[in-house]
């Protein structure tokens, strides 16, 4: 009965697909099928910004009797696949919650594992001219309170940011490390006050919610968030993108554990979003607006009606009706 209510689970095609992908001959067919699905998705509306809370690595390790470290490694592999789907479909920004400031509550051993894993993976995708990020011209940004990062890791991360900075495409991978929204809001408030003091913002009356959002770690050139995905079934946001996700964005809570979150799970979310966005755009265009920003423009429906038939009235004279 629980299942009947859950729209948080992904399609069961997902599991069939996983079984099929074990046959070696089928891999060619599958990659063709994937290209086809992405091609189809490409013709509809595509989200610009997707954020992911990658939850469930540890539970996955426990379920499969793996070491904690292997669980995180499996998670990192799943991430590369999902990133590939997103960027091939045409998503511009992908934001991942790599590490929360609250994660420092974990054991030192695990924190160190996570740090070095993240550094190694980011290095791997950006080290050489033909590694994933540089080959696909993806910009990698580290978002968050950098004062928490140990200096040796910070140096590596900054060099990764530097090498991918001049990517020619709009594709960006935002790695939130270590990040919480509350920290970000406080950071924004502080930098705004600094700017008011310096005279960069003329007066305090100029401050509005857009200025606060522009002063986040993300910076002003980030498109608004369209989809927030959280895997492994928790229905909580855990201090991630609270400001960005609470207006006009879709929040998806998926029951799959992160390492099992694969191609079909991702594309079904993209398809669902595309479906609802098409309906929404259609409803808005009936209301006379091309997108939600134009909703303020009101069209005068009376003036647009065709002209009425001539009057035949018992008032023979011109009578003042007004």
């Amino acid at each position: 009965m629980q299942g009947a209510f859950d729209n948080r689970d992904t399609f069961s095609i997902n599991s069939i697909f996983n079984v099929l992908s074990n046959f070696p001959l089928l891999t060619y067919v599958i990659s063709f099928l994937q290209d086809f699905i992405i091609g189809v998705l490409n013709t509809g509306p595509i989200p610009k910004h997707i954020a992911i809370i990658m939850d469930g690595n540890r539970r996955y390790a426990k379920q499969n009797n793996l070491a904690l470290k292997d669980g995180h490694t499996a998670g990192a592999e799943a991430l590369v696949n999902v990133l590939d789907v997103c960027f091939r479909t045409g998503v511009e920004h992908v934001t991942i919650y790599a590490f929360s400031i609250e994660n420092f509550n974990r054991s030192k051993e695990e924190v160190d594992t996570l740090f070095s894993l993240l550094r190694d993976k980011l290095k791997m995708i950006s080290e050489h001219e033909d590694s994933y990020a540089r080959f696909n011209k993806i910009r990698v940004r580290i978002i968050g309170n950098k004062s928490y990062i140990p200096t040796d890791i910070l140096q590596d991360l900054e060099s990764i940011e530097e090498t991918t900075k001049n990517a020619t495409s709009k594709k960006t991978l935002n790695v939130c490390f270590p990040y919480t929204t509350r920290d970000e809001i406080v950071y924004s408030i502080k930098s705004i006050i600094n700017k008011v003091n310096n005279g960069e913002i003329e007066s305090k009356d100029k401050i509005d919610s857009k200025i606060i959002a522009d002063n986040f770690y993300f910076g002003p050139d980030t498109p608004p968030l369209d989809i927030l995905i959280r895997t492994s079934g928790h229905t909580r946001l855990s201090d991630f993108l609270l400001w960005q996700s609470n207006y006009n964005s879709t929040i998806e809570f998926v029951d799959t554990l992160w390492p099992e979150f694969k191609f079909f799970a991702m594309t079904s979310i993209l398809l669902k979003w595309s479906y609802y966005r098409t309906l929404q755009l259609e409803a808005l265009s009936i209301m006379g607006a091309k997108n939600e920003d134009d909703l303020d423009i009101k069209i005068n429906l009376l003036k647009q009606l065709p002209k009425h038939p001539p009057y035949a009235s018992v008032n023979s004279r011109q009578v003042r009706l007004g």
Partner: protein
Amino acid sequence: MTSSKLSDHVRSEAKVNTSLKDITSEINSLSVDSSRSNGPEKPPNSIRNSSLVDVVKLTLTDLFNFAKLKAHQQTSSLLELIQFYIYHFILLFVFVLITIYKSIQTSYRKFFIKFYTLTYYHNKSPQLIRDDVNKLSKIPKVLSCILDLKDKDDEMGGIDGLINQISELSAWTISAGIPYLQIYEYNGKLLGNKQYLSKLNHSISKNLSEYFGSSILPNYSIKIPHQNFIIYGPNNNSNSEIDLTISLISRVDGKPTIVELTKTMSELAISNELSIRDISIELVDEELIELVGPEPDLLIYFGPNLDLQDFPPWHIRLTEIYWEPDNYDVNYSILIRALQKYSNCTVNVGK
């Protein structure tokens, strides 16, 4: 004497103004609902109309949308154009399939919601509600509910419907033993008007007397943090404890309040009363709890698709979120199912 003079005479005999007087502003200030003539404003994400006919119509119009064709033509060859069209046709076909699937799913879910509504019924008895709740291992202390202000013509629609829903919710939460109920409504239509508030107060005490009998009503207070108002229930005396605090918030308590806080802080910083170094998460948290209220433990959205509708972002940090897909009503069964889910979840910050 001309005809107009005659009509003036008739009017002055009847003690009516002889010249046409503009009373638009007077009327508008009197009628409460004038600002709502366009219906309640809805957040854009809630527009999700999906009847099959609509989608098929949309599909066809979209397929023959030649503006799109033209935009595409400039950038690609004929072969790519044909490919684009085939792919797009497949996408639209899938959309039609999704619509059929969704409509089956919706009726299936509606059946189950009906089933649960029949299974869990409170019978207006606090004892039954408390028994239901006592089966759970833990309950939230602060419960927050997002309610939709529906169209006046709908079932439980308009301000009256909203007031009804709030009074039912407050009776259930008092019976369940939850001391703090936060009601979020996007437009905040209820908050700006004292007439509505007095109506709400009456409605809540009337509803509570149906649950608890009219002799001793539970003690409650209604808070409006944005205007810093508080209204006490009918049998409040200063030494009795408040059983339930109902707090009414709207979108102005979200991002705009953080903006206001930033303005105030920058003013204090300019006059050197506040150093930037002193601004911390704890300070902002303290101020926002004072201005808006505590962080809810459980957030229930009584709508068909999860949409946070600009809910105060600072306050949903670790909040458990619950909603029932395809549900449009405020039901006791939804509340109980949300509480059941809450009792089964564990919060471990950062772990």
